[in-house]
């Protein structure tokens, strides 16, 4: 079953949108708002597009309100599970 974890998400964020100076993405960032990690809405759009391709999942409207990695991962993994069940 497909699943996205924090290290996979941070790796994709780095690849799609770079890394803000002074931010440790390998630290405890699960509940840190994306904006504090240096990622704006475009960075999230770019990363979400990449996840949709890599994981063959549609995330339209699903991750929009997810402001932290925790909320974002929950939303993505719910979508992956729902897709698997369908």
């Amino acid at each position: 079953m497909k699943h996205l974890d924090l290290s996979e998400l941070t790796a994709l964020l780095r690849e799609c949108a770079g890394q803000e100076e002074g931010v440790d993405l390998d630290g405890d960032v699960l509940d840190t708002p994306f904006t504090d990690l240096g990622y704006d809405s475009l960075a999230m759009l770019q990363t979400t597009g990449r996840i949709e391709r890599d994981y063959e999942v549609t995330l339209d409207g699903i991750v929009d309100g997810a402001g932290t990695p925790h909320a974002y991962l929950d939303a993505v993994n719910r979508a992956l599970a729902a897709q698997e069940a369908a």
Partner: protein
Amino acid sequence: MTTTSPVCAPSPSPATRPGTAVVTGIGVAAPNGFGTAAWWAAVLRGESGIGPITRFDASGYPVRLAGEVPGFVAADHVSSRLLPQTDRVTRLSLAVAREALDDAGVDPAGLPDYGAGVVTASSAGGFEFGQRELQALWSRGSRYVSAYQSFAWFYAVNTGQISIRHGLRGPSGAVVSEQAGGLDAVAQARRQIRRGTPLMITGGVDSALCPWGWAAHLADGRLSTADDPAVAFLPFDAGARGHVVGEGGALFVLEEAEAARERGAAVYGSIAGCAATFDADGSAHLADAARLALADAGVTRHDIDVVFADAAGDRAADRAEAAAIAGLFGRFGVPVTAPKSMAGRLLAGGASLDLAAALLALRDQVIPPTTGTRRPADDCPIDLVTGAPRRGVRLRTALVLARGQGGFNAAAVVSRAD
């Protein structure tokens, strides 16, 4: 728009008039040198940056030479966050803007809010980025197009990224007038200085060295197809056969003269006069732009010590420019040079680089040479400085000329700092 010269009342010298825009910082990226000092030293050595294209495989194209900026490592100048969202032209622009600000010794963070703005020239925005995303769209589908394409391609992107990086929230914009843009942007920034903005970053840095950009350049029909870099771009030469395209340009820190003096800034010179005209109905108005710029500066033709030519490297266009210069200054009446012979024509960056050359010529009292061309054609009666720099001349005021494809003409008069 009138093309007659306005009558100028006697006025204080341009460098001291209130609202005068002076240049306090210069940044350069050019095919024959990255950074102002490296480039200027290469120019005075007569060192060309034109060579075979290395950025993409040009072997199948009729034109295989270009002027590429050497030794630019983007990650040394642009943050990891900015790399995925910037074209090469924006990365170069950010590096050059920082050099200009460092050179001026000014910390934008210390300026009042809205006290500094950015006006840059562009010809095609982030072309290479755009090509990559269009390829992704048509070969793999819309899901593969970068979200950053939304602005990375855009004409105003260099202005925007410079503004964001340095917190310059004052009057800003982008000017698109092909090769004339490098002067038109400076003219616009100067207007903002006169309206009360204390500091502006302005000029142009451009690049479109990718297959898509190349297709556009080739469609222009005025490129040299020579394979020997030494004879590919010969402005004013009887054997001129077109120009070479290059990348790069220059950005300047412009400040109001009084404010610059108050903070003890070193001043290269003032942007004493600017003008732009447009060709219509087959008539050329480059000379009118020059006359208007002189009038705007409050100087006469006798005050101009050197002319930096547009130097198209096309027989008809060279003749037209030589006629305009000779008509204004007399046959062989003023030293003329075109150091862009060593860089190629840099799109929106070219005239800005010429402006940088003019300012450094005034500073160092030396006229940089036109390389390649040994002597001007018989039908170009101008005193072209060729072979080696000309020293021992008194240089106080320079005229820079630029023409953009489609009819744009621009001229700027720069005066030495006192």
